[in-house]
């Protein structure tokens, strides 16, 4: 068989090169762990956003200037969601931008990979939200 060794070697090189490029691109297990942590942070940020809406609703539909601490939160919105990063203990940051906009920031390790690119401020690691009264 003349075609015996040529193509298989070529295919082998292509497959190995592709696997290498793939691993180089997605990163190893450590990157996977970072993504898992980011996912948990993103889930916390979304819960916090819901909490902010709840607080605003209880406050005559006006966005709060700052979040009350977990103990001081008003009864309608209790229990308050997690307010700090479970991995670094750094508190999440809530900022009121205007009467209809706010943002919540967290220490994302790969903010560029978060699945909400339109709301995500990649440089600051903040999710921008609109509040419609």
């Amino acid at each position: 068989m003349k075609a015996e060794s040529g193509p298989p070697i070529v295919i082998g090189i292509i497959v190995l090169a592709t696997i290498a490029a793939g691993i180089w691109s997605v990163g190893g297990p450590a990157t996977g762990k970072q993504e898992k942590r980011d996912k948990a942070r993103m889930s916390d940020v979304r819960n916090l956003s819901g909490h902010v809406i709840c607080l605003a609703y209880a406050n005559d539909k006006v966005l709060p200037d700052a979040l009350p601490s977990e103990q001081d939160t008003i009864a309608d919105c209790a229990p308050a969601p997690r307010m700090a990063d479970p991995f670094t203990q750094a508190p999440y940051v809530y900022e009121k931008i205007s009467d209809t906009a706010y943002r919540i920031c967290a220490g994302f390790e790969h903010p560029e990979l978060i699945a909400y690119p339109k709301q995500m401020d990649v440089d600051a690691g903040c999710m921008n939200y609109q509040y419609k009264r």
Partner: protein
Amino acid sequence: MKSSDQLASFVYDALNAGRSRDDISAALEQAGWSTPEIRDALGNWAEGEFSPPVPRPRPFVSAREAFLYGLMFVALAMTAWHLSTLLMHLIDQWIPDLDEKYSYYSKRDMRFSIASLIVFFPLFAMLNVRANRSIKANAGRRRSDVRKWFGYITLFLAAIALLGDLIYVIYALLNGDLTARFIAKAAVVAGVAGLIFFYFRADMTEDANES
């Protein structure tokens, strides 16, 4: 009794009775059998004076072969599929498109493809080397029906992939979607399917020449 069985037993009886091959062919031709059928029927018995007629080795289907070639076929299909998927994700990254954003979902896909390639490509390579070695050692293996069928199914699927790819390129061209990213992806499909197609065609053509 199937007509092919009738033909086989007639040829056996006639050879056993000492009739010449030319006589037998003439009689069969007169009865309406086609030339390839006659050639096949006579080809089943070795030429020579030995009586009773000596059968030639025939294609055989063995469970072991079905297992090996089936596994090899699946390994090749998985390798081709995941190689294409992984390359397409890499292209998405290397050729950015403003419409679509790269996210961690595609990372998960890529990891799955990498894992599949790590498992299936060495398996395919190993089985392919093994199959080639056993064909070399035993020419009868070449006549294996299992091998032929898997070879032609592979050829068929590769041909379908190539044709589908071509249709899609023409469609994208007419639709104005022929971006650099699209061309690169179409080239990946053509490359993977083309490589498989030409490799197996060379393999199958050698079989056809030999028999």
